[in-house]
Structure formats: structure tokens, C-alpha cells
């Protein structure tokens, strides 16, 4: 059963006509070539494929595209050149948050959602916010510090 599924990705209208059970991560990566979205586990455990769907942080590997009808989707490609996105990317760069980098676009998305609702989080709140995003390289300390740096540098941006 194929039908047209209409939704928005990074502000652009997308019409998907194919199997509605296709995973959103495959539509984003293969059809839309948004390869900043990474697949790390395929079961919603690692957070590498995190995107923002209607304001909420979700893992795109366990969402069928059929569930996106009418949704507003943001990927790393949609935020990296915004003021807020640049603020986080630069804080990650300067704060030493990045090693192999595979988990990082997902981490940036998690930080974006956190700071958008909590402009001055504590370290504990940051750790909770990224607890669904697995990183094997950093041990998390410098990611936590970088998110705090983004909060400090961004200031009014996050209010």
C-alpha cells in the first residue's frame, strides 16, 4: 500500500511516495542525501540518528516515514547555519567535544533541544539530556563542558 506522505524537512516540503514503513533515517540519508544523520545502532539506542520532529528529539531509525505525515523535521543540516546551530558547533569545536565525530551531529541536536528549553542547564541536566546519545570516545566530560560553553556563549540566544 503506497501513498503520498507529505511533511517538511529543514523547512522544505517533501513528498514521499513509497512504503510508509520505510525508516525515516533511510529517507533522510538515501533519498534526501542528508548524510549528517548517522546510523549507529538501528534500534533507537545510540542516538547517532537523532533529529528534531515537531520540536522533540527523536531517533530517526525507529520512526517509520508514515508517522511523519504533516510533521516538521529538523536535521543537523537544517540547524548548522542558524545562529543557534553555529553556537553549538563552535562550542563543540573549541571545547574539545569531538573525537571520531560519529555521534556528534546527534549530540548537537540533543544540545539544541536542551538549550532551547533550558538556557542555563546544570551539568546534571546536561548529562540527563544527552543520556540517550552514546559516545565511545570522549567519556562525555568535554561534551558536557562544551554544551555549557554553548549556553554561556549563546546567552540571550537561548532565552
Amino acid at each position, binding site marked *: 500500500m503506497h501513498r503520498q506522505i507529505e511533511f517538511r524537512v529543514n523547512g522544505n516540503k517533501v513528498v514521499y511516495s513509497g512504503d510508509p514503513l520505510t525508516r525515516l533515517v533511510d529517507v533522510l540519508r538515501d533519498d534526501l542525501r542528508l548524510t549528517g544523520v548517522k546510523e549507529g545502532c538501528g534500534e533507537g539506542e545510540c542516538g547517532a540518528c537523532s533529529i528534531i520532529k515537531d520540536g522533540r528529539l527523536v531517533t530517526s531509525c525507529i520512526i517509520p516515514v508514515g508517522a511523519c505525515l504533516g510533521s516538521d523535521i529538523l536535521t543537523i543540516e537544517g540547524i548548522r547555519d542558524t545562529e543557534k546551530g553555529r553556537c553549538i558547533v563552535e562550542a563543540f569545536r573549541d571545547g574539545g567535544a569531538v573525537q*571520531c565525530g560519529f555521534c556528534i551531529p546527534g549530540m548537537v541536536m540533543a544540545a539544541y533541544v536542551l538549550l532551547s528549553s533550558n538556557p542555563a542547564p546544570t551539568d546534571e541536566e546536561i548529562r540527563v539530556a544527552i543520556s540517550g546519545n552514546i559516545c565511545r*570516545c570522549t567519556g562525555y566530560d568535554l561534551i558536557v563542558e562544551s554544551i555549557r560553553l554553548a549556553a554561556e556563549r549563546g546567552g540571550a540566544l537561548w532565552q
Partner: protein
Amino acid sequence: MPLTGIDDKVVRVDAEAKARGEARYVSDYVLPDMLYACMVRSSVPRARITGIHLPELPEGYYFISAKDIPENGRNELWMIAKDWRCFADGDVRYVGETIGLLVGKDRNILRYLQDNTRIDYEEGVPAVTIDDAIALKGGPIVGEDNVMCSLFCEKGRPMKDVFNEADSVFEETIETGFQEHVHLETNGALITEEDGRYVIYASAQCPFYIRKSVAGLLGISPEDIIIRQTTTGGAFGGKEHFPDVLCGPLLVAESVIHKPIKLIFDRSEDMLYSVKRHPSKTIFRTALDKEGNILGIEGTIYYNCGAYLSASYVVLQRGVFHANGVYDFPATYLKGVGVATNTFPSDAFRGFGAPQTLFAIETHLDHIARRFGFDPAEYKSRYFIKKGGETVTNGHIIEEVKLPEMLSRLAEASDYYRKAEEYGIGSGRGIGISFYNHGGAFTGNGEQAIIKAHARLVKEGKRVRIEVGSTEMGQGFQTALRKIAANTLGIEMEDVDYPNPDTSLVPDSGPTAASRSTMIVGKIVEECAKEMKERWDEGDFSVEKEYVHPEGHPWDQDTFRGDAYLGYGWGAAVVEVEVDRITNEVNTVGIWSCHDIGHAIDELIVHGQVNGGIIQSLGYAAMEKMENRNGHFRQESMSDYVIPTSMDFPKQEWSLVDNPYQWGPQGAKGMGELVFNGADAAYVDAVERALGITVTKIPIPPEDIEEALENA
């Protein structure tokens, strides 16, 4: 004053592209007319193959197997040994052994074909554990005794005399489990052809290893294959030799199909069907006098190598060379035995054999100290090896050993002695400590005799390009190496380029492994830069150099005698825990570490390496349980095999002692593996003290703590 000072804070060169999602990992590459591949693997651990039944293949779909290897090719992957076959042929020796490769355009169809391929087996009885292998369960897998490799080292008086004089002998067996790398990017590779040459894009640590390993499959020379490293999303040893297992079948497929073919593992394949850290079993017998002083230690170390040797002999050697820890005991006899089992071959993993034995010796010494009523830190510090001290390979420590200073700094930072005294044994709260090291680079004169590493600098106008075979895999080498070059040349770091290696364009610098890149390749680059600086006004030119081993440090690779390593990284860690007495859940409340890595090239990168290595080590000790039942791994996803999240461990305190290494670039030594080598033992020490239990096996998740409490 150089423009790029070695202690300057610099921006990591690869960070922004990665954070913006612009860095291209192998799964992000798409070529015109590209096909996909998936593996057909053995589903039993030990069997003769009696039949392969494929569903009908649609047009444009292929099944590639041993039959496709040409007459002048050989069905072997040349890692360090040549025993690992590209395709199983006639029999299978472990679950997940490659039998064939299905290739075609549509991944869903490939998955259907994979699900409907049936292999008939005549099954044997598998040997899975070290004990199975020793007992020759199911008959020997290799030779007559299942021993794949072995070695021994002895130092001091004969152990027989030492044991005769002992007041008591303390014997115990310490075991460690499998560990899975879980690099966030799974394994993957993509093959194509350009101008009559094979080109492989791979997520890999060692591009030159791959072409050497797979060329023999087609009877061609390594130069006929180009390997281009793609941005590599973590490796930790898991992409040292293992990419050969993907690239071999891909090369055979390409020789038949002649179209771009991509093979990307999903997470469950990467977890079930990839190499792991060697499980180990170490039996220590320690001769003690009446006061608890150590007269000598005898150790027998078994490593579970899995079904093929691959790099296991070298891993085992490093395990034996690190089995006396950071200590100078009067006499030691250490024997290592690598046994064959019907499990996925074990291979490189950060630490390369050293973490298993370092954990064993640290834990063993803790137990001796406690028996005699000594504080473990005080007891161990009596035996710290010093400059000039004799190593287990009858060589000597060449550098200043700053362990006493590291201990006192760490003890002060963590308030170790007060807490050790105050928290009673079994009080639910505990503090633990460990000491460790890691020999930098290849053993002995291997860097000169075997590797013959090269590096090249190319000057074009005011820009300088680094040409090396070494890879960035997250450890920060692209930044560190540019910093070394820029600092030595007296130019801006922005004027130095270092692209991902392409084996047709760069010299072989040896593998990116063994904590050797900064120490060895960095040194060659520094030497090239010194010459280039002197000749700077000559216009455009290049300088290439080969590694030269310092003289006066002999090593005999046949008897394993001499200076095994010229420079060691040294470390000490303290971990503090609180244990919930009802659920046995361990809450880590403090982590402190101090390391000697010579002189740091970039403190921010080092900070990240220290944090990450320690958390991996704590995961190894506390939670990362990978079980194998009857040849099958039981953990097949990230929800079964749990690695640390941001909530599992607290923020770390860390420090470095400066101890510039005379033969390293700007005084640097290796550090990537060192930081993995010791937090596990500190954690277990803390848990033992908190609960009053004795732990002789890791990992120790809460359910195993329960069992230890029942046995206490």
C-alpha cells in the same frame, strides 16, 4: 618564537566538519551504478559444509565465494599470520565465518536472498572457552594441543629455588572477558575501479595493511590496489586487521562484477561478527616471606585467540611483557599461551593484550596486601620499578619513572589515605587505586627491523603537506601531527595540510596502532621538518625520511630478551564508589588519574583521550559483559551489550606529570592505550573494599556482585 607553539591551544582540525555533519564516512559515499553486498556467514561454530543452497538469483545478483578466487590467487588474508581464510571452504571454525558475499542493487532483495540461503552442515563439538581448548573438547582445532602461540620470560634466580625458600605461596586465578569495541561507526568498505586499478574506500586504521592482506587473493601485487581511508568513526583496534575481512571478499567480488560495491555492517552484525578483546585467564603463584615481602612471581597466562591466529601472538607477547605491572620483583617467570577455540578470532583492542595482565597483577597484589594488612598503595609502591631497573625481558628502564610523584599527587587530590583508612572494609563505601604502564610503539627494534616507517613532507609555495600512511580515527592525530610540523617549521598550523591517506600517494608509515603514531611517525615528521626548515628557500621540494632506532638498545625477537620498549607511558588511577546494599548497584562517585606521557603535544586532545580511555576501562570492569554460549555471542545489540552513557560515571579529575622523552617529537610518548590500562583495577579494588568481597573475574555487573557476596 615559533608561530605555533607546542603548548598553544589550537582548534582541532577535523572538529567543525564532523560537528556540522559534513565529514564523509564510508556509508555516506554513493557512486554511480553502485551495488550493495551482504555476507552469508556460518551459523554454527564447528562443522563440515555439506551443501550450499541458494535461492534463485535474479538477474544482476551474484553469489561470490571461494570458487571465485582465481587459480593464481590464494584463499587467505595476510594479516600478521596468513591462516585466516577469506571464504570458508569445506569447513567452518566459528559462528560468523564468511562463506560468501551476495551482491546486487537492492538491499531488501539482498536481505531476502540472505534469509533464504541454506547451508547444510555436519556439525562437530565446539571448544569455546580456554578450559575447553586445554581439554581438547571436540578434538584439537590446531596442531595436537590447540596451542596457537606461546612464549616465556624469566628474570632473577630459578623459581624452584625461590619457592623452596618461601614462607608461603599465594596462588590465584584471575580472568577477564570478551570486550566489544562498539566504535559508533560500524565496519564498512566500498570498492570500485579506476584506470585499471582496484580502489577501496575503507573505514580503517591501517590502509597499507589492507592492500598487503588482500592482494594475494587475486595473485596481484599490493600496488595494484589503492586504499583510501575515509573519515573513521572510531576504531580502538577494531579496524586494525578486521577491515581485511570485509575488503577481501569485496576484492574477489569486484574482480568478477566490475561495478562499485558497498558493504556496510549493521550494528548487530558488527557486534556478533567482528573481532573482540581476548578473554584471558592468568594463574599467579607468588612466593612470600613471613612479613609478606614478594620473593618471586610465577605467572601462566592464557589468551583465547579464537579460530585463527591473526595478530594474537603479538597481543600475547605484549600481555606477557606487561604481566609484572610497574614493578621490579626479584624473580619472575611468565609464560604465555594462546589457545585456539571455535569463537570469532580475537584481535587488537586498545591496550593490545596489556590490559588483561595489568588487571591481573594489580588485583593479585591488592589481595596479597590485604592478607598481610598493608594498604595496597603503600605495599605496591615498595616495588615500583626505577630508571635502570631490570624488566621481565632482561632489559632496562631507560627513563626516569615518576610513579612516586604521581602517587603522592593522586593521593592528595583524592584524599586517598584518609578515605582508605576511614571507609571500613564492607562499609558500602570504598576507594581503590591502581598503577599501570604501556610500552610505546612496536616491541624491541621492530620499528626499524620490521616496520621501516616512512614519512614525507612536501613544500608547495608557503604550504606544506604531510604525506604519511597514518590515520585519524578520532584520537586527534591530524591535529597533533600538523602541530608538530608547524611548530618545527616555524609556520602557522593553517599552512600545513594532512589529507586522509591514499596508499598510491603516501609512503607507508606503518600501522596506526601500538601508541606509535605520535612517538614514531611524529618523530620522523619532526626530522623531515627540521631539514625542510634549513632548506626553506630552495623553492618547492619534498623531504622523506625513514625511522632510525636509537643505538645501544639491543633486542632479540627470538628469545624475547632486551629492551622491549624505549619509552613507557605511566599511569595511576583512583576510583571511589558507593554500593547500594539492596540492589548491589555501584555508584562511582569519584575518578582521579595522573599520567606520564612525556610531554603533551596538545593538552585538550590528551584530556579527551584520558577521559575516554578511563570510561572504556570502567565499562570493561563494571558492565560490558559479552557472553559466548556454544559458540554464539549472546549480546547482539546496544541494548544487550551496554556501554557507559553520560549518566554512568561522574566528571573526572586528571593531571599529567611532565617527563619529556628524549627520542619523541617535542618530548612526546605514546598515550592512546595507556589511559585504558588501569582504571578497571582501581574500580574493582574500590568495590572489593566497599563490600568486603574478593573479585577474580571481570566484568562484575550487579548480578555477579550478588554471587560474590554469597560466596564471601
